[in-house]
């Protein structure tokens, strides 16, 4: 209990990942959906860093860096698209984004 091992970190990563997935499934506002995806990426980063520490290997940290870089560019492009959508339609709800219905 007092000795923190790899399993502790993996369980924490699971809990955070589950919270993020609940957010992805119940949110309708696209901005808050982005917040939930950030939670998913962060929970996986914790698992990478923990494995990197307990196995003395730096590859996990490298992957965590690239995940952070991808998250940053995803936010830049995603927010740009969201602003364009909001200017054109006035809301960012997922249920209204169905312009291709037959």
């Amino acid at each position, binding site marked *: 209990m*007092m000795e*923190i091992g790899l399993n*502790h*970190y*993996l369980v*924490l*990563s699971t809990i*955070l990942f*589950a*919270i*993020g*997935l*609940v*957010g992805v*499934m*119940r*949110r*309708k506002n696209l*901005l*808050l959906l982005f*917040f*939930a995806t*950030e*939670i998913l990426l*962060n929970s996986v*980063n914790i*698992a990478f*860093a*923990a*494995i*990197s*520490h307990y*196995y*003395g*290997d*730096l*590859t996990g*940290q*490298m992957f965590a*860096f*690239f995940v*952070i*870089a991808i*998250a*940053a*560019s*995803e936010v*830049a*492009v995603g*927010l*740009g*698209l*969201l*602003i*364009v959508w*909001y200017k*054109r339609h006035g809301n*960012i*709800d997922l*249920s209204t984004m169905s312009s291709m219905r037959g």
Partner: protein
Amino acid sequence: MFEAVAFYLFAFLTIAMFYITVTTSQALYALTALAAGMIFISAFFFILGADFLGAVQIIVYTGAVMALYAFGMMFFDTTRAVKEKKGNKFIIVGLSTLAAVMVVAIFSAPIVSENMVALYPVIEGAGNTQNVGLVLFTKYLVPFEVAAVMLLVAMVAGIVLAGKKMDLSLTLMNGEEIDKMNEEINKKVLS
């Protein structure tokens, strides 16, 4: 002892913050709780000895990503409460738990089968930042450069998308609207 105390404290704080992020109906509360959760996550990186990763987490996530979200929220109407999807709660929680357990299975499968070899072991005596630099600029140099190009592309895309007149689309307008827009442009040029 101190490691255990720090782990449980920050685990509780992070879970609480992210729970607020996914459940609150106010977008500003969600943003603030997410920023706090990001800072608490960097504490795990410091506990794990990944100092550089922890600093990057604070700078990039809390400094850049959260600031970008805060500026982006100025465009949206964030004062009203957010409407939620009406779905079956048991299905949502069940599917989330299942997917999360599968993530842990992915991470723990090589560990259980003892198939994990340290390809780039930590060099004793060098700090974490030096170790990261050694691996990043030898083995991961090409992905590093590709990530730099990707960030540049994302920056250009963000500037262009958030710029003026990007909400107008010539393919979605009819002829009269396009003529009216061209007249306005000509007026501005002539005056």
